[in-house]
């Protein structure tokens, strides 16, 4: 195994590999920054390019797109409050507030550095611990996943804001939205009102753009001092080393949370970013600053969502099983090269696998350089005259919603969620629990259904005899929720200012 590692190290040191990684990183960043174009789409479209390249060139190219794309999604989240992916939701909370304060450049730098720190640490961890991780992955089945998803919802509800009832109500609405469409297990239509377009459920992207970005646009017309009107048309300074150091504890914590979540199949970046953010706010001596333009908030979300990347590769490389769509495309790239990932590949061509893992780590250095150089270019967006910027943002909102599934119906959805977002803001309801309820509702329902199918009508016996892990999480859930809620209440008492503004 050591020998394979060093052979792999030698194979990884190729100029053309790093050129293709750079191209991948840059195009990933550009595509990720365009609302509506997902990293997944970019990888699927550019997959055939890798068919005609050597494995050690083609697969790193796709990895570059993946890494660049996830960071790219945080660019519109920070600049115009438009999360391009679910993973960037937590980034909008503080990132956009920083832009409004004229510190967009600082926020983008922080996003880049914490993303790369999270990514690199989790990649190195994966490289060193690949076999232990593979064993841990096997401990998580649908019952454990269902319990963890439920725990995540409880944590989000307990920490959502000063008024837990409002948060719970929004989450319930979000959960209900997630049930609209075809029941994921039985295949029965629910709440579709006979509309065919609703049969495949509510699309995520129009919801995200609708509730997060449209209220910002609408507020421009009501508020003359708004950022988009031109109050803060400055790029601001770059990030200072001292500021990075200040957030370093948070970045490390988020990296650990993200890596841990990456090990559990089926959770992913959205949950990681939310949990990283929640943990940072919970640990902070000044939690009231979160959501108002706290650099640490950006760092917490971004380090966590990128730290997921490393461990998600483990089931693919050790068993040949893709855990999500991104790894499914990577699997395609491997097999098109005649390499079928799995236990046998590690035996026969371990050096190739190590070479790819090593490039994954080294690509982060390129990522740092390319990201740092291109941030000034992206940040310039905020200096565009508002008479041009506002129509542009509206155009991207509409086009982004449409392009995702090429369905005109999704523009109606965008309008619906935009109105919902505006009403929620006026009534001082936070939309975050709604979105999280929507995103986590479907996998929770699915995992719950799977658990029930596995138990075959005998849930209690099943839990007591076979699934002690699930039982432990279920018992711990109310305790953790109560503890967090108490902490939140204590922390928030001294400041009487409402958290929603």
């Amino acid at each position, binding site marked *: 195994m050591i020998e394979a590692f060093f052979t792999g190290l030698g194979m990884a040191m190729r100029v053309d590999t790093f050129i293709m990684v750079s191209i991948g990183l840059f195009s990933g960043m550009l595509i990720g920054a365009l609302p509506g174009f997902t990293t*997944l*789409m970019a*990888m*699927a*479209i550019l*997959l*055939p390019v890798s*068919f005609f390249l050597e494995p050690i060139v083609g697969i790193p190219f796709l990895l570059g797109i993946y890494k660049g794309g996830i960071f790219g999604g945080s660019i519109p989240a920070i600049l115009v409050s438009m999360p391009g992916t679910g993973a960037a939701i937590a980034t909008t909370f503080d990132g956009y507030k920083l832009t409004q304060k004229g510190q967009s450049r600082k926020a983008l730098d922080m996003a880049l550095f914490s993303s790369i720190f999270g990514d690199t640490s989790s990649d190195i961890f994966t490289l060193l611990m690949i076999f232990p991780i593979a064993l841990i*992955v*096997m*401990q998580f*089945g*649908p019952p454990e996943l269902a319990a963890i998803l439920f725990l995540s919802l409880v944590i989000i509800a307990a920490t959502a804001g000063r008024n837990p009832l409002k948060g719970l109500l929004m989450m319930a609405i979000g959960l209900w939205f997630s049930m609209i*469409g*075809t029941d994921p*297990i*039985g*295949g029965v239509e629910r709440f579709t009102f006979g509309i*065919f377009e609703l*049969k*495949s*459920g509510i699309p995520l992207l129009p919801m995200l753009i609708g509730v997060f970005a449209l209220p910002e646009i609408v507020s421009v017309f009501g508020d003359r001092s708004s950022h988009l009107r031109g109050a803060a048309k400055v790029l601001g300074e770059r990030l200072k080393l001292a500021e990075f150091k200040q957030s370093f504890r948070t970045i490390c914590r988020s990296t650990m949370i993200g890596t841990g979540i990456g090990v559990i*199949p*089926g959770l992913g970046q959205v949950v990681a970013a939310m949990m990283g953010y929640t943990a940072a706010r919970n640990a902070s001596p000044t939690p009231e600053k979160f959501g108002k333009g706290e650099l640490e908030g950006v760092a917490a979300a971004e380090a966590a969502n990128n730290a997921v990347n490393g461990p998600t590769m483990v*089931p693919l490389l050790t*068993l*040949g*099983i*893709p*855990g999500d*769509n*991104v*790894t*499914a*495309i990577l*699997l*395609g790239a491997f*097999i*098109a*090269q*005649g390499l*079928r*990932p*799995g*236990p*046998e*590949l590690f*035996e026969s061509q371990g050096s190739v696998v190590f070479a790819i893992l090593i490039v994954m780590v080294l690509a982060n250095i390129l990522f740092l350089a390319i990201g740092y150089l291109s941030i000034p270019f992206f940040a310039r967006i905020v200096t565009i005259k508002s008479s041009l910027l506002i129509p542009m943002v509206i155009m991207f909102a509409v086009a982004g919603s449409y392009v995702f*599934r*090429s369905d005109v119906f999704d523009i109606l959805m965008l309008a619906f969620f935009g109105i919902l977002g505006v009403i929620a803001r006026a009534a001082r309801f936070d939309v975050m629990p709604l979105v999280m309820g929507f995103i986590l509702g479907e996998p929770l329902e*699915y995992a719950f*259904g*799977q658990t029930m*199918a*596995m138990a*075959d009508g005998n849930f209690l016996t099943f839990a007591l005899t076979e699934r002690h892990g699930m039982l432990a999480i279920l018992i711990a859930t109310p305790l953790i929720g109560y503890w967090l809620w108490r902490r939140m209440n204590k922390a928030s008492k001294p400041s009487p200012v409402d958290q929603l503004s």
Partner: protein
Amino acid sequence: MSKMNVLKSVLLSAALSLGLTGGLSAADYPEKPLTLVIPLGAGGSHDLNARVFTSVIPQYIKQAMIVQLSPGASGQKGTNEVAKADADGYTLLFSHNYIDQLQQHVESLPYDPLKDFVTVARINYAPIAIVVRGDSPYKTADDLFKAAKADPGKVRMAHSGNWGALFVPAAQLMQANDLNFNLVPYKGGGPAMQALLSGDADMTMGFPSTLSSLLASGDVRVLATAGDERIYPDVPSFSELGVGGDVGFMHRVVLAPKDIPQDRLDMLRDAFAKLNDDKTYKRLMSRLGENIDYMSGDDYEKLRADQAEAYKTLVNKITGG
């Protein structure tokens, strides 16, 4: 002269505009890129197969073929898009037999598969295999069937979704042998295989092309494979177990809206037939581990009609108790 030219161009444009619906079209078709709708998600076997043939077929149709993934509602979303698209030969569907012919018996669809679609070509097919863990107590398919019969619901079978490519063969086996597996759904074949390996499930199904590495390492064993002939020398085929016919095959097919002009359909069918002799296509497909068992559109149409009947019987038996 100039009058003649004007007259010519007027006539020509008139002919062209008529040509969009009439018989003159073959020479001009295709004049813009074609769209291939896949009603399934990114990274699946349909996506991969399509990436391969759409990167080779432009040589034969002289236009690009653009893949558009349109997953949702168990494949109905993408299928409906093509059903409602203009039947001008610019929008095609890349689907499989379960979405195409089985779903109509399970749900009410906004389209009628046999009336709304016609086959361009069957690209290839994949036979399914019954898979258990390497250390499983079930050594043969017979052991497995006996256990499931003795204690219905005892054997947990992980599949990739109701009425999907792993569920249907299992249902067909259950029906033929009068037994019951405890069917647990997963989001795709990958997670189902992971459930088998982690011990959450006792059996699953898988395509031999995806199993090679796990078979070689001894992590899984194959108990039977679909079809009349054996794929592995020491593993029985479904026919030997008494389940013959078109059971456990996933046919990957390119379909077009039924009203497509005949000359355009012929042109497309011809192009897909030519793919079979293309070296790049063969090389890339064999790397994917997929076969190149092309079947002409006409031949597959007969198979489709049979499938519609067979699936109807199956669904009635399974859901009727």
